[in-house]
C-alpha cells in the first residue's frame, strides 16, 4: 500500500501494512494448546509476553492469544483442525487492528507520554507485551529491541493513534526520560 502514513519526529513513526492476525481463545490448560500454536509456526508466550519469530504470538489475557502471521486464513483453519473437540475460538481478525512501529533512541519516552505504563527498561524489556491505553484509546505495546517499539490498536481509532503518536514525538518535545 502506498498510503501508509509516516511521521518524522524525534522517533520515526510508521504505519505498518495490514498483516495477518488470528485471535485464539482457549482456557490456558487446554489439552494440546502449545502444540496447536506450534502447529501454525508460533511459540506459546509466557504471561504478558510476545514470542518472536516469523509468527509472533502475543499474550492478550489468560485465555486469549493474538497470533501475528503472514497466513491468517491458513492458521485459522489449522488451529480449528488441531483443537477440534476442545472448547476454543480461532478467528481471523486481520481487519480488526492497525499496527505502528516506532524507531529511535527515545521510543520508550514517546510511549510513556501516552500510556500509564512503566516504560523503564527493567519493567518493560523487549518481548514484554502490555495491553493498555494510548491517550484515550485501548492499545497494546511491545518492544522488539531497545530502539524499536510496536503498537496495535483497533483500526477504527487508527487515525487517532497515528495523530497522537505523531504529536508527542514532534521535534522539540524531548523530555530526556530513560
Amino acid at each position, binding site marked *: 500500500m502506498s498510503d501508509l502514513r509516516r511521521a518524522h519526529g524525534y522517533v520515526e513513526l510508521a504505519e505498518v501494512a495490514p498483516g495477518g492476525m488470528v485471535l485464539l481463545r482457549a482456557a490456558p490448560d487446554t489439552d494440546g494448546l502449545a502444540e496447536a500454536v506450534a502447529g501454525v509456526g508460533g511459540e506459546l508466550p509466557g504471561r504478558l509476553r510476545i514470542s518472536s519469530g516469523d509468527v509472533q504470538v502475543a499474550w492478550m*489475557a489468560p485465555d486469549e492469544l493474538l497470533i501475528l502471521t503472514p497466513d491468517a486464513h491458513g492458521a485459522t483453519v489449522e488451529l480449528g483442525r488441531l483443537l477440534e473437540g476442545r472448547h476454543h475460538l480461532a478467528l481471523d481478525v486481520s481487519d480488526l487492528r492497525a499496527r505502528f512501529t516506532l524507531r529511535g533512541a527515545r521510543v520508550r519516552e514517546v510511549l510513556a507520554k501516552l500510556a500509564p505504563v512503566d516504560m523503564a527498561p527493567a519493567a518493560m524489556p523487549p518481548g514484554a507485551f502490555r495491553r493498555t491505553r494510548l491517550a484515550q484509546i485501548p492499545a497494546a505495546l511491545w518492544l522488539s529491541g531497545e530502539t524499536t517499539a510496536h503498537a496495535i490498536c483497533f483500526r477504527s481509532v487508527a487515525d487517532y493513534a497515528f495523530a497522537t503518536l505523531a504529536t508527542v514525538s514532534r521535534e522539540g518535545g524531548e523530555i530526556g526520560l530513560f
Partner: protein
Amino acid sequence: MLMLRCPNCGVTADETELAPGGEAHIARAATGSDDAAFEAYMFGRENPKGVHFERWRHAMGCGKWFHAARCTVTMQVFGTYPAQTLSPPDDLLEKIDAARPGWRWRDLGAGHRHTHDHHDEER
C-alpha cells in the same frame, strides 16, 4: 491516583486503565421476592466512609473483571481478588482487621468473622 493489581493478568493498573463496576457481592433478588427485597437489590448500596468492596474491570488491559477492597477515605488498597467468588477471602479480611480495627461493611468486619452459611443459600 488509584492503582489496582488485576488478579487475572497480574498487571498493576492505573485507574485510567480500569472501568468501575460498582459495589461488590450484590445478591440478585430472585423471582418471587417481595417489593422490599427487590428495592434493596436494585437501589440499596453501602456508600461507606472507609472500607469498601467493589467490582472493577481491566477494560483497557486483559478485559476481565475482578474485585477490590479499598478505603474510600484514604484510597488505601487492601487487596484485589478474583471475580469468581461470593465473598472476600479470609486472608484479605484479616489484613483489613489489622489496618482498620472495628471496621464494618454489611455483615463483615468488627470481629464478626463472616460465615459462608449466608452465601451458601445463594449458590
